[in-house]
């Protein structure tokens, strides 16, 4: 065959960003999604916050704050993480739709690197998470949580990492599935318990089986890091439900790398699942 023109390489970031943009456009064109990923956590926060107010026993570390810790305030970073988790679920459930609607096969036959396909999805999920969690976190002063610009940058930087991680986790779960019902089952049996046992919803105590489940749960370290960043100025002691900042970051980075690696491996595998 005669050479026609020089083969152009699609690169990594440009295709990843175009796929991420597509996620954003689709999200904003579907109003119900906007309400689902943000409204439910907000509702949980208001209702659980009011309902559990009197039965809540604040963890020991709250004594460092020098003021009583209300349940609504304890629950606050947990709801932010829930928004990130729900957004990750909504972003990755679309993998199943993309495959059914045929869009995915068009992407898979293109010369774009499989990492770019994964990064596109994750970046889209991350942007949506940051927008929604950002709106929620604007309520922080209501809880008596004050933060300066540097602190907010750190908070958003960490949320970006966490959103990347959870979207990658959703990616790994959604990719092998061929129905959204299957995803719902995984969400209820795996993702919700993971969130419940992360210290987001209740402190797990310092001993007993529950505290061990929490220690083994990678999301515990995500919630802890966010909590520590919100209480930047207070030297909160390390405990089972609140690991140190260094450990939290390390676990989250390892968790993220594992999920991203698995995602890329899954996308790279040629499979009958991907054809229509």
């Amino acid at each position, binding site marked *: *065959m005669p050479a026609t023109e020089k*083969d152009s390489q*699609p690169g990594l970031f440009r295709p990843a960003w175009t796929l991420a943009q597509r996620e954003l*456009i689709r999200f904003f064109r579907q109003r119900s999604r906007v309400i689902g990923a943000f409204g439910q956590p907000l509702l949980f926060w208001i209702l659980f916050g009011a309902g559990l107010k009197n039965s809540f026993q604040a963890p020991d570390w709250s004594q460092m704050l020098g003021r009583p810790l209300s349940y609504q305030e304890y629950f606050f970073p947990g709801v932010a993480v829930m928004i990130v988790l729900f957004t990750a679920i909504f972003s990755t459930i679309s993998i199943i739709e993309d495959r059914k609607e045929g869009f995915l096969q068009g992407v*898979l*036959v293109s*010369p774009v690197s499989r990492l770019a396909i994964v990064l596109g999805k994750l970046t889209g999920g991350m942007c949506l998470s940051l927008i929604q969690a950002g709106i929620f976190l604007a309520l922080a002063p209501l809880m008596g949580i004050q933060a300066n610009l540097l602190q907010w940058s750190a908070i958003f930087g960490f949320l970006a990492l966490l959103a990347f991680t959870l979207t990658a986790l959703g990616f790994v779960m959604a990719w092998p599935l061929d129905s959204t019902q299957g995803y719902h089952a995984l969400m209820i049996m795996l993702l919700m318990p993971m969130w419940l046992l992360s210290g987001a919803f209740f402190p797990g105590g310092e001993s007993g089986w529950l505290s061990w489940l929490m220690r083994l749960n990678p999301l515990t370290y995500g919630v802890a890091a966010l909590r520590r960043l919100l209480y930047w100025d207070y030297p909160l002691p390390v405990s089972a439900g609140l690991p140190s900042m260094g450990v939290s970051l390390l676990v989250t980075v390892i968790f993220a790398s594992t999920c991203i690696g698995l995602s890329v491996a899954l996308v790279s595998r040629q499979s009958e699942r991907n054809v229509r």
Partner: protein
Amino acid sequence: MFASTPAIAVRNLSYSYLDRRALDGVSFSVTEGEIFGLLGPNGGGKSTLFRILSTLLPVQTGTVSIGEFDVTKQQRAVRGLLGVTFQSPSLDRKLTVRENLQHQGVLYGIPKAELQARIVSNLTALGVADRADQLVGKLSGGLQRRVEIAKSLLHRPRILLLDEPSTGLDPGAILELWSHLRELRKQMSLTILVSTHLLNEAENCDRLAILHLGRLVALDTPSSLRSSVGGDCLTIQSHDAGQLAILANDITSRLGVSVQKVGDVLRIERGNGLDLLRDIMSEFGSSITSVTLGKPTLSDVFVQRTGQTLSAAE
């Protein structure tokens, strides 16, 4: 690249799903600039072959190369050479036509400076430029199909894979599509591989590979395939379908011609069909409803090679 390198070379390719064998030792090669057809019923193996060529499915046994690249070892290079138009649309229905093509352009590494102009010229060539800013989901099936093709040609592939291109198109649009494809072939020495189960579409191909039950049962130009059948083709219908086998025997013993029973009709290939037609009518006229005499079609080729009609094989 060398002129001797075929655009597509498939050698001894077999593929099995968990429960069945879809391709069984298929070999062929496609010359550069050729319009090559894969004809066969649904389930004959052409979809599996199409998916292996487009890199969606792995090569299990055998080898496949696209241009000078191996589809297993050099996937990325292969993907860059190919344009793929799927039967089921790969467009995002919630995006506009232009947005879909923009994403496509980036995925194929088309420089930013060129992209907009290319989108416009591709949409114009397929007659859908006026739809650029409409949501794909709002377009008719035929228009979506054209956008799909414009999308797969955007990066000026050297080889275009088209799966059942006529799906959802009206006859006028099919004619237009084919004249456009021939034009493209001329302009950019595009190689086109079409999979189809429609005979009139297969007629548009320079060469045809007929796939049946995962095997390649014929490979030649449409006209050579037709002339391989014989001069004329007689099709006989009887009012008593139950007696067809007996009738077939009687014709063979009295007139000395071989008769093929295909479904509810009898088929006879014959150098001079007109004489035979007269003989059959005078001998068996009473038990025959109708006899048709015609030049062989690709349908007859399929019947001759597989013993089944194309529609019955599905």
